[in-house]
Structures are given as structure tokens and as C-alpha cells.
């Protein structure tokens, strides 16, 4: 870039404090016109707070935002949009029962006739080669297509800066490739892109510059194309990245945990039906279930953990026990423990102390109660043991679960289940929103548990995680489970196609899926 071109946006010493934390501490960086700039950092590094200030959702306590050379005050998102900032959020705000067109019309600041708006939408779709039918009802669309609505909504305003917050966490590898194509096209027109992610290989593929945040401070800047994922990760966490140590060749025991034709009708309008789920996890094995969110993972976890009993009884078996009709307590007593995806209010009660949270699932196996009486002392001791063994950062067993950071609470929940020494452990999204240090510790604990002969089932949307952790895996798509693949032999492309390939093109998906099966 030559010097006479002013940066599109420049942040100077932006500081923002919340009670107890300094979310951003004198953050400065700039984004050039047409640049795809990555904002990189672990959960809690301050990325979201920073972009919320650029988009006018929050105001900085100190510092200055300079837009095209002019210092500006972004009072609210409307002002940000007027300035030329577009944002695509991680969580979409769409009305399920309305069409794409109606949803976009609702989000517009000015008023525009339906036909005019549709014309403009089609123009944007054409320019960026995006596939989306403006008259489809949102509830019938895949997550990838929904994200496209948000992108179109942002592009209609002809933004000078587009902020994308963790856009790929809900996409298949093929959809990610398509998204990147769109973003590259957009940057060629001069629009700058601020891309927030912690997925390093994606940033290496896409971005020309990166600013790395840690603990609210800028700790480095780099050209991702010249870095390796490991080098960026080490800048991000500020230390050496631990690799999972896993014995290369391991012996597996008997079939320990089996689903055999598990079929459950979908509940409600947006529930997913499970259709003839079959898999076998052997003793000592880590078995993965990949898939894009919302394809039946939640329903599967509830059915397997016993929160939603089903029939016939032998559709789920643990060793020689037919357990599908049992409730969660019965299954736990046989040695089946589970960790759900949602930590707050499902895996743990945020308003309860850590001690009370051990009583939630460990009261029988760890003898924290008997004859209906709770032993507070035993529970406190067990909570302390979990805190020590899993290096949970907290002031003690008496602190509220809600006062722990996401990663620490996840470590506590995982520790609570693992220390019960389960025969079978089912984990959904073990490292969702967890920092890299905690994620490594959780992964290691899972591998160690498997080495002791437990059967482990990991449900995750993070393919990298599954490939690193699992011995075998299968893919869930629309409530159906694919054939089982050996991790050593499966390619990302193959798994991606099983995940549903490019959503919104059913013929291509069917064709590709067939090709994979034939393969």
C-alpha cells in the first residue's frame, strides 16, 4: 500500500473495562482498503468486545477510532452502517417462519419497496455468485444458506468494511471454500474485511494480515501466509502448544457400547428425527461423530445419555445390558456418563456451588449420598479432587459454577465425569469455546481414559478435533449416521461430503454422497 492512501479503519489505544476484567487494553491496529485482516485470539482474548465497539454496540472507555483518516464516534449500529460497516454475527437473528426477502426487508434501515429490494438482492447474489432463493422460508434453509442471508443483508449496504465473527463454525468444508471465494471477490472491489476466528489454517488460506490478541492486548502482528498454524497458535496462547500423546498402535477390547437401529421420532417443528443409528464403540476406543450443527447431535446425546429414554430396550447396549429404556440414573449406575454440549444450565447449574454440582451427577457413583441424604463433606472433598486433578482455576469448591470461565467450567464438568471412572463416556463438543490450553488438557484426559479401557464417544463439529482424537468416526447428517470410517484412511474431503457437502443443492449432494459410498 502506498502512503497516500489512508487506512480504511485505524484503532488507536482502544481500552474497554468490565467489572473485574480489562477486556481491551490500549488496542491499536489498522486495516487497509481491500485488505482481508484477521483478528486472532483465544476465547476471552477480547476480539468480540473490540468489534462490538467498531460496530457501535459498545463505546470504548478510552482511545480513538479513525475511519478513512477522520476520527469518528460510533454511537450505535445504525451509525456504523451509515459509515459503511457491515457485520455478520456468529449467531443469526432470523425469523424462521418468514421468507429470505422478508427477513432482509426487516433489517433494512431505510424503506424500500419489495420489488425494488428483490431486484437489489438478485443483483448482489449475481455479483458475488451466491445461491439463495429470496422466496424460500428460512426454516427450510441450511445453516450455510442462513449465513448467506446475513451476508447479503450486509452487502446490500455496500459496506466499506465487513466484519465476520467466527463465520465458519457452522459450515461444512465445502461451504467454507465457497464463503472464502465470496470474500475474496468482495475484497477485490475494495471492501476491507475483518475476519475473526481461531481456526488457523483458514486464516492462512484467506487473510493477508493478522492482529493477534491475548488477554485484551495486541501481542503480535503477522502475515499469516508466511506463518505456520503452530507458530500462530503459539503467539495466540503465548506458549508452546501441547500435542496429544497417544500410543500409535493400540489394542481394542470387546464391543462395549452399541447402538443398533436407534430410531426416534423428531419432536416439535425443529426437532430432528434419528433414523436407524448404528455404531459400535470398543473398549479402549475413541469413536467420533462428525456433522454440521443441527443434524441430530442433540437428539442423539439425549437418547444415549438416558435423558430421553426410548424403545426397544436393545437399541442401545452397554456390554450385555439393554439400556435404551433406562433413565439417566440407571445408566449412570451401569457406568455410562455423559457431558452435554451446553455447559450453562445443562452440564452444570450456574447458580449452584461446584460442590452442589458434583451431587448433580456423581451422587451415586461417588457415594455422595445414601438413603436420600446428601453428604456435604464427601461432595466437597470430591469437588476439591476434581479441581486439583484437572487444574480448574477457581477459589474453591464453594464458588458458584457461573463464576468460572467457560474453559474452566468445562474442565470441571469433564473432570467430574472422568473421575467417576465410567465404562462409557459420551461427550458432546468437549472443547466448544474452550481456550487452547484447556482444550489440550481435556483431549489428553479423554485419551488417557480410553487407555484405561473405557469406550469413549465424542460428538463434535470440529473436524480437526475428531481427527486428532478419534480412532474411528462416522458422520451424522439429517438424523442418519454414515458408515464408520477409520481415521487414518479418511480424507477431509470425504468426510465433508458425508457432512452434507454443499448445502442447498440436494442433487449435487446426493450424487456426491453416492460417489463417496461407491469409493
Amino acid at each position, binding site marked *: 500500500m502506498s502512503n497516500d492512501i489512508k487506512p480504511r479503519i485505524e484503532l488507536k489505544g482502544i481500552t474497554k473495562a468490565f467489572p473485574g476484567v480489562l477486556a481491551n487494553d490500549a488496542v491499536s491496529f489498522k486495516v487497509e482498503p481491500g485488505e482481508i485482516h484477521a483478528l486472532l485470539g483465544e476465547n476471552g482474548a477480547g476480539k468480540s468486545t473490540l468489534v462490538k465497539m467498531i460496530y457501535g454496540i459498545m463505546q470504548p472507555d478510552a482511545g480513538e477510532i479513525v475511519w478513512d483518516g477522520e476520527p469518528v464516534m460510533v454511537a450505535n449500529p445504525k451509525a456504523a452502517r451509515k459509515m459503511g460497516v457491515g457485520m455478520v454475527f456468529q449467531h443469526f437473528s432470523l425469523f424462521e417462519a418468514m421468507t429470505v426477502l422478508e427477513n432482509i426487508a426487516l433489517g433494512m434501515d431505510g424503506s424500500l419497496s419489495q420489488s425494488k429490494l428483490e431486484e437489489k438482492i438478485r443483483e448482489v447474489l449475481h455479483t458475488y455468485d451466491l445461491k439463495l432463493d429470496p422466496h424460500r422460508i428460512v426454516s427450510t434453509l441450511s445453516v450455510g444458506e442462513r449465513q448467506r442471508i446475513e451476508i447479503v443483508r450486509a452487502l446490500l449496504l455496500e459496506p466499506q468494511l465487513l466484519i465476520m465473527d467466527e463465520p465458519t463454525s457452522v459450515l461444512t468444508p465445502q461451504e467454507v471454500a465457497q464463503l472464502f471465494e465470496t470474500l475474496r471477490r468482495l475484497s477485490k472491489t475494495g471492501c476491507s474485511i475483518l475476519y475473526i476466528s481461531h481456526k488457523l489454517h483458514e486464516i492462512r488460506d484467506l487473510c493477508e494480515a493478522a492482529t493477534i490478541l491475548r488477554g485484551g492486548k495486541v501481542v503480535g502482528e503477522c502475515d499469516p501466509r508466511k506463518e505456520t498454524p503452530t507458530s500462530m497458535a503459539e503467539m495466540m496462547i503465548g506458549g508452546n502448544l501441547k500435542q496429544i500423546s497417544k500410543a500409535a498402535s493400540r489394542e481394542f477390547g470387546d464391543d462395549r457400547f452399541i447402538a443398533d437401529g436407534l430410531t426416534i421420532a423428531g419432536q416439535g417443528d425443529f426437532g430432528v428425527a434419528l433414523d436407524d443409528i448404528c455404531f459400535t464403540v470398543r473398549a479402549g476406543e475413541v469413536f467420533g461423530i462428525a456433522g454440521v450443527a443441527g443434524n441430530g447431535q442433540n437428539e442423539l446425546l439425549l437418547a444415549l445419555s438416558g435423558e430421553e429414554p426410548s424403545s426397544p430396550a436393545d437399541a442401545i447396549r452397554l456390554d450385555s445390558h439393554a439400556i435404551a429404556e433406562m433413565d*439417566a440414573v440407571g445408566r449412570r449406575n451401569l457406568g455410562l456418563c455423559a457431558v452435554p454440549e451446553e455447559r450453562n444450565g445443562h452440564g452444570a447449574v450456574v447458580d*449452584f456451588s461446584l460442590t452442589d454440582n458434583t451431587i448433580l451427577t456423581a451422587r451415586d457413583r461417588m457415594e455422595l449420598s445414601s438413603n436420600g441424604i446428601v453428604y456435604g463433606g464427601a461432595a466437597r472433598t470430591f469437588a476439591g479432587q476434581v479441581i486439583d486433578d484437572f487444574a480448574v482455576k477457581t477459589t474453591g469448591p464453594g464458588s458458584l459454577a457461573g463464576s468460572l470461565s467457560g474453559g474452566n467450567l468445562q474442565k470441571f464438568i469433564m473432570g467430574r465425569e472422568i473421575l467417576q471412572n465410567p465404562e462409557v463416556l459420551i461427550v458432546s463438543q468437549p472443547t466448544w469455546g474452550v481456550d487452547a490450553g484447556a482444550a489440550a488438557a481435556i483431549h489428553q484426559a479423554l485419551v488417557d481414559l480410553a487407555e484405561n479401557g473405557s469406550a469413549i464417544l465424542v460428538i463434535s463439529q470440529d473436524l480437526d478435533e475428531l481427527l486428532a482424537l478419534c480412532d474411528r468416526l462416522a458422520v451424522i447428517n439429517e438424523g442418519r449416521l454414515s458408515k464408520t470410517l477409520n481415521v487414518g484412511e479418511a480424507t477431509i474431503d470425504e468426510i465433508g461430503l458425508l457432512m452434507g457437502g454443499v448445502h442447498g443443492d440436494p442433487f449435487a449432494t446426493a450424487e456426491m454422497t453416492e460417489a463417496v459410498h461407491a469409493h
Partner: protein
Amino acid sequence: MLIELEKRKEPSKAMLYLTPVIAVVATMLAGAIIFSLIGHDGFGAVRKIFLAPLLDTYKWQDLGVKAAPLILIGVGLAIGFRANVWNIGAEGQYIMGGLAGTGVALATWGMTGWWILPLMCIAGIVGGAAYAGIPAFLKTRLNVNEILSSLMLTYVAIQVLYYLMRGPWKDPDGFNFPQTRLFTDDQILPTVIPSTVVHLGVPLAFVVAIAAWFVLSRSVFGFQIRVVGAAPAAARYGGFNTNKTIWAALLAGGGLAGFAGILEAAGPFGQMVPQFPTGYGFTAIIVAFLGRLHPIGIVLAGIILAVTYVGGELAQSSIGLPAAATGVFQAMMLFFLLATDVLVKYRIRFASAAKAGDAA
């Protein structure tokens, strides 16, 4: 100067215990001002209502008798409220418990034996619990909101009471007054302190509160109640059945309200009359919240509300305060409690004007 609310990292324990006190003090202040403004001796009224019953040792027995049903019903409601089961119909369950016990009394009229009174109490508990079973059934089977069903059933219970008093259960020797026969000696609660009105129900209420404290804090059932209220998904994950919990919470609340009902009928009333519903079931909602849904807190709150009842009567006779004043004070207490509750999770911060100017 700007006043900001800032979320606390953890709910303040101190505020949890302090806000009921703040609410009571604020009620006294606001009450004094309001009644002064409308031409009464406001400060005199507050002194009469809140202090006179405590200073006059002769009134203590009345406090005990008024507090007993409030504590019993309040404890039962607290079990439900902790599980997020909003039983607003304790008044109806109280009436039905009273009626069920009265039914036993009328059926055993003329008989003697130690067993009659316990049987009446059991009938009272079962009657109240069964009446609370209706909202439980509707909630668990048809997902009917228990707030509405339990509240509306209260008015049904009142009509049942009126019907029985004017028809089938009317005292045949009662000169056509709509009330039952007087209970016999074996059907009346004995006094526990001689030459006072303190009947057996008063110590029983305290025993129940202590037992409930133990169950809620130390038992798996108490844990289940708390976890279902705090996080239903976590409760299911922990293996607790939500529907069973709803049933248990409503049956416990109804049973204790019914118990309070028969203790009132067999205690202070000594018969069943159409004036039986005195609003204890509704006032107990204030008691439960003022006592922080904690059985021991509820004992204290029950005594405070009893003070306002006794004091309200004193103020009526001595300084001519209207009867509705008692209700006004009780309602203000709940109002101020709910208003100050925000301090448990938030703290007040006074942002300086200079800084506010910077941000603008």
C-alpha cells in the same frame, strides 16, 4: 451524577439477607408518610402496627397463633417456589384441608377417643394435597399454567365452603346460622401454655419448619427441588424427573396448607364458619418471599406478618386506622422486597458526571 446498575460477579450473600430488612424498614417509612398524607397519625400507626404487638407481652400469644398458619403455608409454598412451581392457590388448599378435617369431625361427632384429632389432621393434609393435585395433574398432563389453575380453584373452594355451611353441614341446633356444630373436646386442639390461646398447632408449625429445613438442605429430594427450579435441563441430565417434582412440590404445598387449615378449624375457630378464609394462603406468599424461601427465614417472616395482623387490629381500635391498612402494609412489604432484590445481583454505581460527559 448518574446511577448505574452494575452486575455483580456473584450474587451478594449480604444483600440476600439484608434486603428483607431493608424492605421492612422501607415499608415502615413509606407507610408513615402515606398515612400522614391522608390525614392519619402516620408515625403513630407504624408504631402501633409494628412495635406495639412486640412491646406488649400479653400480645405475644396472639402473634404465635397468627404466625403458625402463615409459617406452615409459607414453608409449603417455598418448596414449590424453589422448584419454580408457582402455587398461588394455597388459600383454596387451606379451605379444603379445613373442610376435610371438619368432615371427619362431623362424622365422629358424639364419639370420644384420642384418635379423632390425629384423624382430622390427616384428613386436612390429604384434603389440601388432593386439591393441589388438580393443578399438578393439569400442569403435567396438559401443560396448564399452575398459577392460573391454582388461583381459580381458590374461588371454587370458597363456593364449596359456602354451600356446605348453608346446606348439608349446617348446625341442626344453630338457629339457621350458616355454620357447623361446635367441635367437641376430643376434636379441639389442646392449649400448650395454660391460660393462653396458644394451641398445639403453634409448636407444630415450628417443628415442621425445622424438618423442612433439614429436608431442603440435606436430602436428595431437597436437591432435586432446587435443581429443577434452577436449571430444568440440568435436572433432567442429573436424572431428576420434572413431572414428579411438580407433583411433589404441589402436594407438599397443598398438604401443608391443608394442615394449617384443619389446625385453624380445630384451634381458634373450634367449628367451621363461612368466615373461615382469612387470606392466610395469600399472605403466606409474602411470608415465603420475605423469608427468602428458607424455612428458618420463613419462621421470622411469619412472625413479622403476624405482627402486622395483630398491630393492624390494635391500630383499628386505638387510632381508628381502616382495616385495609394491614393489607396495604403487607403488600408494600412484598413490593419493596421485590424492588430491592435487584441489589442481590447488581450493585449501584454512581458514575461521575465528568465521565458521563466524556462518553457523550
